[in-house]
């Protein structure tokens, strides 16, 4: 952290609310959103640009994220979690990704991919052992599903474990794992001797378990990504989730994470729009602000239109999540649409910023590069299209 420069630049972000969505949120929702917005301005904005430039994960921020309540806010308070609803969770992810997709990824993985499966499928012992520490940021977790040769087709995974008395022996490797280089625990999905997928908690320090970092990323540079390598790792059977078998386990977690991403993408889009709007009014060409020219106005008008549509999709989806009615296909629609929307807005905003848009003076290029990961992880853009295609026609186009 000593090499990271704190920027003195004021974060003047103002969120667009063209359809007065604030009227649809409770006072508590707005307080939650505004608190995280303030936290992001204070803790993330001053360092994020330099962290990304230096490809540095600000590990100290994990504790601060835990203190403000960014980990597992939608899980029950009895395990030290937030006890809030899905609208609150979504608004928090929106604000966090407004700061940076890498920061949101850290929170998404911890909350939706580590804490959520422990809560949903874990034993009471597992819940009490891990959830309070994960919620406080005293422990960092990661989620191992994707393998080097098995990404969109996780059912073909080869990571496996064999019975060994009170323990199992785990072998295999996972790739593209957010948080892995710093994680204290990993929720790993692997096949048992019958070839059935089960979830198992692997702790750092277990012999044969290593987490090499992935270098050379041009995206999510402030978030740590790595591998999980299991070389005859002896894991107690007590670490296996008793509550789920099969691909349903990891896919249930992904639904929760994808929901958060659909809100998060709005945050990144908002930041690009806000920066582009501000820049277009400040930048003078031909004797007046470039915001006065039709081509720039077209870009800004289309950005606001798409952000407003995405906000309404998320608001409705949040209520469906609260009522337990949201389907995986509905979540796919929101994730696919909103991330694509945000990426498109980042590219348009980059154009409005001209040459300045490629520098770290503005957040645009950072968001754009981050969103290339976001449109790929947690189900690629194309896979979500196939999920929707199957929903519409009943025909499976995956195989």
């Amino acid at each position, binding site marked *: 952290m000593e090499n990271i420069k704190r920027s003195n630049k004021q974060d003047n972000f103002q969120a667009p609310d063209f359809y007065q969505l604030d009227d649809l949120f409770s*006072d508590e929702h*707005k*307080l*939650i959103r505004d*608190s995280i917005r*303030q*936290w992001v301005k204070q803790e993330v904005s001053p360092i994020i640009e330099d962290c990304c430039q230096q490809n540095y994960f600000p590990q100290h921020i994990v504790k601060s994220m835990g203190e403000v309540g960014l980990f597992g806010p939608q899980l029950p*308070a009895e395990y030290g979690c937030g006890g809030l609803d899905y609208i609150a969770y979504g608004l928090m992810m929106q604000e966090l990704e407004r700061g940076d997709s890498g920061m949101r990824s850290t929170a998404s993985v911890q909350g939706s991919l580590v804490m959520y499966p422990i809560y949903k499928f874990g034993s009471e012992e597992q819940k009490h052992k891990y959830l309070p520490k994960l919620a406080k940021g005293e422990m960092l977790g990661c989620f191992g599903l994707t393998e080097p040769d098995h990404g969109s087709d996780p059912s073909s995974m080869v990571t496996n474990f064999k019975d060994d008395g009170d323990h199992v022996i785990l072998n295999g490797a996972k790739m593209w794992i957010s948080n892995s280089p710093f994680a204290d625990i990993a929720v790993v999905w692997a096949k048992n001797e019958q070839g059935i997928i089960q979830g198992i908690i692997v702790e750092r320090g277990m012999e044969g378990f290593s987490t090499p970092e992935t270098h050379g990323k041009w995206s999510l540079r402030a978030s740590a990504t790595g591998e999980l390598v299991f070389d005859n790792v002896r894991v107690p059977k007590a670490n296996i989730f008793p509550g789920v078998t099969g691909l349903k386990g990891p896919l249930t977690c992904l639904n929760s994470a994808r929901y958060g991403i659909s809100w998060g993408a709005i945050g990144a889009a908002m930041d690009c729009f806000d920066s582009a709007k501000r820049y277009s009014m400040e930048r003078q060409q031909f004797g007046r602000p470039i915001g006065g020219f039709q081509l720039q106005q077209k870009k800004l008008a289309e950005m606001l239109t798409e952000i407003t549509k995405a906000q309404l999709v998320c608001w409705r989806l949040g209520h469906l999540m609260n009522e337990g009615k949201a389907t995986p296909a509905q979540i796919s629609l929101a994730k696919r649409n909103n991330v694509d929307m945000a990426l498109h807005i980042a590219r348009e905003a980059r154009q409005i910023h001209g040459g300045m848009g490629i520098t770290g003076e503005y957040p645009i290029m950072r968001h754009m590069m981050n969103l290339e990961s976001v449109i790929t992880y947690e189900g690629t853009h194309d896979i979500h299209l196939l999920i929707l295609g199957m929903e519409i026609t009943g025909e499976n186009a995956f195989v």
Partner: protein
Amino acid sequence: MKILVCISNVPDTTTKVTFTEGNTRFNNAGVQYIINPYDELSLTRALELTEAQGGTVTVINVGLVDTEANIRKALAIGAHEAIRINAKPVDAYYVAEQIAEVAINGGYDIVMTGRESIDYNSGQVCGLLAEMLGWPGINVITKIDIDGGKAICERDIDGGKEKVSCSLPCVISAQKELTEPRIPNMRGIMAARTKPLQVLEPTSNQAHTKVSVYELPPAKSSCKMIDPANAGQLIDLLHNESKVI
């Protein structure tokens, strides 16, 4: 130790100010309200004092029901309970009268306010309260500690600092450097749901002042460039056109 912190509900600092009803009322359509930032500093310092020495923090607001969102925020930041005087805060004297009534009956050791509210900036409530209560009052403080039943405060003065102490109970108002404000965390927001918020009717409905008219400052005029060799023209413009010298 019992501390009463006075919080005002003020327009967000980015608000574009306009008026209605023949420029006699502030137009609050679409305006987002926040806790007055100086009051938030008082609240934070009050929490720090009670966390270190034990005690409770009560927040009080004079306002109608729409101020409750910010009262809940104060509870989420950590205040133990809240009181809302159900009345429009017409002027500083009226507000101070309402708060004084609660302070007398509540057995508080310290009443804390901000140095001024950022909307009307009158900066009077601290002094008025001290006078009404007959307690010592120290205005615009940058530091406060409690030791041996005394409040020991610091204030900025021209070219230095002034250390002032007084016996409890007392009234103080906070200046910017007092502490750093706290961001409510999710556990605090959850806890705020069930913390007591008492609504009291005002003791008096008599306002002592009335706003006749509001005026916005004159719009910024364009910048005039003057040749450095022609300083006399600058003096002439400042004297005859701007009438500032």
